[in-house]
């Protein structure tokens, strides 16, 4: 009680004199705050190690690590921006980058990147994705790693059944059916039907159809009949080669089913590497999404991860120094090896661990293959998330339950995307 009263009184007195933690100390020492946008016990130790290394190399700069739960990170950034309490450096992915740029919260990094050791050292495809996300084409994050959609599969089940990893969607579907033994609670595949479903469905649809552009003449290509064909095929698998509960699967349930041993194949991305290997060891491997009848490999890239320097930071130079350090060859290699993702720094490609990380090597192979066509989804659209989540996820569930046709479903989503894209173009 007394402590509280004192605090209130002291705070009221100090109303005008806000404390600024990030300020430079008298001895030239600065403290910068770093927000990890996907904080949690899995990543915290990795960053803590990098921070220790950074502080050893830069004794005048202290870094304060704050892990933000990934589910709330966008809201947390919004509140911080509105309240003027942004960190100095923050992890930001392209999925909400446009939103932050729109609020003028971030400092452009083009000059800093080009003026330092990172010049020409970043994967061009990732740099391009980041550029496309900002309305003015500037780099507001320095890309650090990329992710890719893949299919995790149980090598032991495949071996026992004498099957090979499927290369085409038709093989995929027959494999899933063959591996299903509903009586023994074993299923060939698991569909993500709940939260996050449509993000994944879109990557599957384009992998199948080979349509090589998200928009043609300003019209979304999502409603392409070939895309609908794939959605129909997936919906056909539901309950035949997948658990019935799949209609409500979000990532958490999906991975619980897979690591729990009741499912042979799961479409997710490299990010689940540590989870699946922890549970299944060497009985699990990754394959790229199968290709469709066209034989062309089309990839819808995942959001790109990176580090942003906030405009409000009083120590932008120190903040950049830290962001640069995190993306340097050594740190980038360390970090991506630990989380099992694709490093953005091209110097890392020669690192020894890439040879032994089969899934990363496979993904890099796909991205490096000149025949691979990248079809970036318009994550830069402010409405992209609401269109593909709130609006369409319940509709997709209807498709799975046979209450809505796949074509109708995709046409509806495509129409909304076309409108959003037009609005975006008009504003540019």
């Amino acid at each position, binding site marked *: 009680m007394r402590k*509280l009263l004192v605090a209130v009184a002291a705070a009221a007195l100090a109303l005008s004199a806000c404390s600024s933690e990030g300020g430079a100390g008298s001895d030239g020492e600065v403290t910068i705050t770093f927000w990890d946008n996907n904080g*949690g016990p*899995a990543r915290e130790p990795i960053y803590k190690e990098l921070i220790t290394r950074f502080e050893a190399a830069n004794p005048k700069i202290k870094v304060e690590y*704050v892990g933000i739960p990934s*589910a709330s990170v966008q809201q947390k950034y919004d509140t911080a921006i509105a309240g*003027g*309490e942004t960190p100095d450096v923050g992890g930001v992915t392209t999925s909400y980058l446009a939103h932050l740029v729109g609020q003028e919260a971030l400092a452009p990094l083009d000059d800093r990147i080009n003026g330092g050791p990172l010049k020409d050292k970043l994967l061009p495809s990732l740099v391009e994705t980041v550029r496309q996300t900002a309305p003015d084409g500037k780099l507001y994050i320095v890309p650090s790693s990329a992710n890719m959609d893949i299919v995790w599969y149980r090598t032991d089940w495949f071996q026992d059944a004498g099957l090979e990893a499927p290369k085409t969607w038709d093989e995929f579907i027959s494999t899933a059916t063959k591996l299903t033994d509903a009586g023994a609670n074993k299923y060939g595949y698991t569909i993500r039907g709940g939260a996050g479903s449509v993000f994944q469905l879109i990557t599957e649809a384009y992998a199948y159809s080979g349509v090589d552009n998200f928009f043609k003449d300003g019209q979304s290509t999502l409603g392409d009949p070939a895309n609908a064909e794939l959605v129909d095929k997936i919906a056909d698998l539901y309950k035949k080669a997948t658990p019935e509960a799949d209609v409500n699967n979000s990532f958490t349930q999906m991975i619980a089913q897979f690591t*729990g041993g009741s499912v042979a194949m799961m479409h997710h991305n490299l990010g689940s590497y540590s989870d699946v290997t922890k549970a299944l060891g060497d009985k699990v491997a990754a394959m790229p999404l199968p290709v469709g009848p066209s034989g062309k490999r089309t990839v819808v890239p995942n959001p790109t991860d990176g580090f942003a320097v906030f405009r409000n930071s009083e120590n932008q130079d120190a903040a950049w120094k830290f962001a640069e350090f995190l993306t340097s060859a050594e740190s980038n290699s360390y970090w991506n090896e630990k989380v099992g993702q694709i490093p953005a720094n091209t110097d890392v490609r020669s690192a020894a661990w890439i040879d032994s990380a089969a899934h990363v090597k496979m993904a890099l192979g796909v991205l490096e293959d000149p025949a691979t066509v990248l079809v970036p989804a318009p994550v830069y659209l402010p409405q992209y998330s609401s269109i593909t989540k709130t609006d369409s996820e319940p509709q997709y569930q209807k498709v799975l339950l046979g209450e809505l046709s796949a074509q109708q479903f995709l046409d509806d989503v495509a129409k909304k995307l076309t409108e959003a894209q037009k609005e975006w173009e008009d504003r540019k």
Partner: protein
Amino acid sequence: MTETLTRPPVDAAPPPRQPTKRRRRAVAEEPGKPWMIRVPLVLYLLFTLIPFYWMLVFAVRPAGSTQLVPWPISLEHFDTVWNDIGFGIFFYNSVVMGLGVLVFVTILSVMGGYALARFKFRGQRVFLLAMLCSQFIPGAMMLIPLFVIFKGLGLLNSITGLIIAEVAFQLPLSLILMAGFIRNISVELEEAAMVDGCSRTRAFFAVVLPQLKPALVAVGSFAFIGAWNQFLFALMFATRQDKFTLPVGLSYTLGEFNTDFGALAAGGVVAAVPVVLVFAVVQRFLVQGLSAGAVKG
């Protein structure tokens, strides 16, 4: 394994059949048999308990295990959440916040409730109405204004700030509840005490307060649990990990790509046990408190 799990309801079903006619008559002229009540109740009980059981199983079995009845029990997940993830600190923060909110909400609602119940003052109705209306504003809408104010007051990153915010949000309803309880305590008793020479204050402490015990427990425990479960403010106002509370800590264990179910479940147990304990201790008073004055003698 599943057999052992499904058996209990079968075993549990027979006993309800045993009661004799005498007993059935005692339940008055209710049509039907006792099992018609008990079987659904047992099913409902299982329905509510199975998620808890599941959480417990995940928490005490080693990672990667699929046992349905975990043995031997492993405490590794508790060690992880408590020491590595920092639930020790989160727990302390939550306790401080919960107790702080409990104390302030109870004291303020008794004081305010007494004023509302016993005195007439100008604008009383408007005041009550304003109290009620404040319940219509969702916390999320107040988030940014509060954030800015707290920033100015230097109350971000402090449990004190969280207590203030939570007390402000909980007080209106607690106040209205408390006023209702106090209204149901007959004024005559107080007046009699005052005739015997008590001051109003002394009459309050000697006569009113003892009768308010069930109400205090009801309001206090709800205040505690409300604070214990508060997530939004705790998440938004804390930018230092040593100021996280349990709900924030729990969401912290849920990564975008990795979820350690064992740690999550162990964290869930840590967060749930105090609530269960609080209810186990106070539920007797709680029922009294909530129904106090329901029927006037």
